[in-house]
């Protein structure tokens, strides 16, 4: 795999305050590769003091550095490849596709309502990064023609377990909260539980498959419809 071999020259390393670096990458695969490399080095004890490694849409934040310039000098020489990228755990998410925005999503996709679940559950997703709330993962993998904007008016309350879409991402609300994403359905999975190990089901790099609980077992997974 050479997807993450060409673009390292385009990476920018930006200091953040006195104790952090923000690494800008050309596409999400580089962030995955960089996080995996940082995790490997942390496990080997090479990055003492590092408190947090936080991937974003096109960035990785490394916080808690005693010597940011020193790490920046090292980072500039790294060329982590996606060939060394761990597959990440696979989480299957059972979904009942009965969300409040199902009709609106079907209209925008120009498909029948009953096709929304099949299209949404066809790809394998990957958690690009987390944020918004503990355990909320931003999932990439939905073909671009199905990307939708946020709702013009956010809801004051979106129920926990809501499976939703916005801005090129899929996501699942870990708990009741306000939210502006388009709601496709809901799952009974508990995304975040501080008393459980692991506390979050969706961590950066996790692969995700949605399964339509109302679909027959041998449902066609073809996206082309």
């Amino acid at each position, binding site marked *: 795999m050479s997807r993450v071999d060409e673009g390292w020259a385009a990476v920018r390393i930006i200091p953040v*305050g006195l104790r952090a670096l923000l690494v800008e990458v050309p596409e999400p695969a580089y962030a995955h590769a960089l996080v995996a490399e940082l995790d490997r080095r942390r496990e080997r004890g090479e990055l003492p003091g590092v408190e947090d490694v936080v991937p974003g849409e096109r960035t990785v934040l490394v916080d808690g550095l005693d010597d940011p310039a020193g790490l920046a000098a090292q980072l500039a020489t790294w060329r982590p490849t996606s060939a060394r990228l761990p597959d990440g755990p696979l989480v299957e998410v059972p979904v009942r596709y009965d969300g409040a925005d199902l009709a609106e999503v079907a209209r925008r996709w120009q498909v029948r309502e009953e096709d929304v679940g099949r299209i949404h559950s066809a790809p394998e997703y990957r958690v690009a990064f987390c*944020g918004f709330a503990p*355990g909320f993962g931003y999932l990439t993998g939905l073909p671009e023609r199905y990307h939708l904007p946020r709702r013009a008016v956010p809801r004051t309350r979106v129920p926990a377990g809501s499976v939703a879409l916005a801005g090129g991402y899929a996501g699942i609300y870990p708990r009741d909260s306000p939210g502006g994403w388009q709601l496709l359905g809901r799952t009974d999975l508990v995304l975040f539980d501080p008393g459980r190990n692991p506390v979050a089901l969706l961590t950066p790099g996790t692969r995700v498959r949605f399964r339509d609980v109302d679909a027959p077992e041998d449902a066609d997974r073809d996206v082309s419809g």
Partner: protein
Amino acid sequence: MSTGRFVEVVRSGALSTVQDLGRPGHAHLGVPRSGALDLPAHLLANRLVGNPADAATIETTITGVSLRVGQAATVAVTGAWAPVTVDGRPAGWSAPVSVPAGARVDVATAKRGLRSYLAFSGGIAVAPVLGSRSTDLLSGLGPAPLAVGDRLPLGEVAGPPAPVDVAPTGTLTEETTLRVVLGPRADWFTDDAPGILAGPGYRVSTLSNRVGMRLEGPALPRRIGGELRSEGVVLGAVQVPAAGTPVIFLADHPTMGGYPVIGVVHPDDLPLAAQAAPGTPIRFRIVEGVRRGPFLYRKR
């Protein structure tokens, strides 16, 4: 009146929360770091009563708190300066105070500063969540803010109180000056934005909380419009939302942000920010950041 190793809330004050060193290390899961906003005050309070640094204290907001101790304990109040009484009698501030079983410890409204810290020998021993007992107001992790009648358990006493009468502390000034290092997104603003940020006219807004210190004052003009792709944000980040007036991210800040961060407050000045009450003038002083790295600063 029952006795035991606990404190009971008699008056909760405007907002009193349990705080310790927070839960850094979970930002990649969307979990805020949380923890005491005025960290040196939290650490001093613990030292005064003989607690380890990571014991939990109570952080008050402006109007103090009243607590009754279930059994004899040592208490110390630090941070915002406020009159302290034990059963109505004046007691020391920033000093270890021995209180008998059943005594009521009162911290009145702060005369200077915003947040006081109460440490009890043994520490507040509520169940930790992800390694911390801190109340996180953004995500709701940790114990709820204190309410009248709550009983908070105290832990085992770790050591003797500090052998001092009163610990010396710095003084808080009328105007708060915060050093700020520009970046990571200073290039999203016009060339005169840093000068505006460093200029007069900023005050702490009443909308401030543990998530962020909101400011009133001049807007910072943008060179690049639109939204930033979501990226990780650090404690002390000076983020500039669409309206243009900066917000300083405090301990309960969201882990990610979609607005550009023009600079980051020097970590040693965050305790000053924690003690700046609404209305306090804020002055930013721009200081040199990290140099000598393979950093690329590309103007767009």
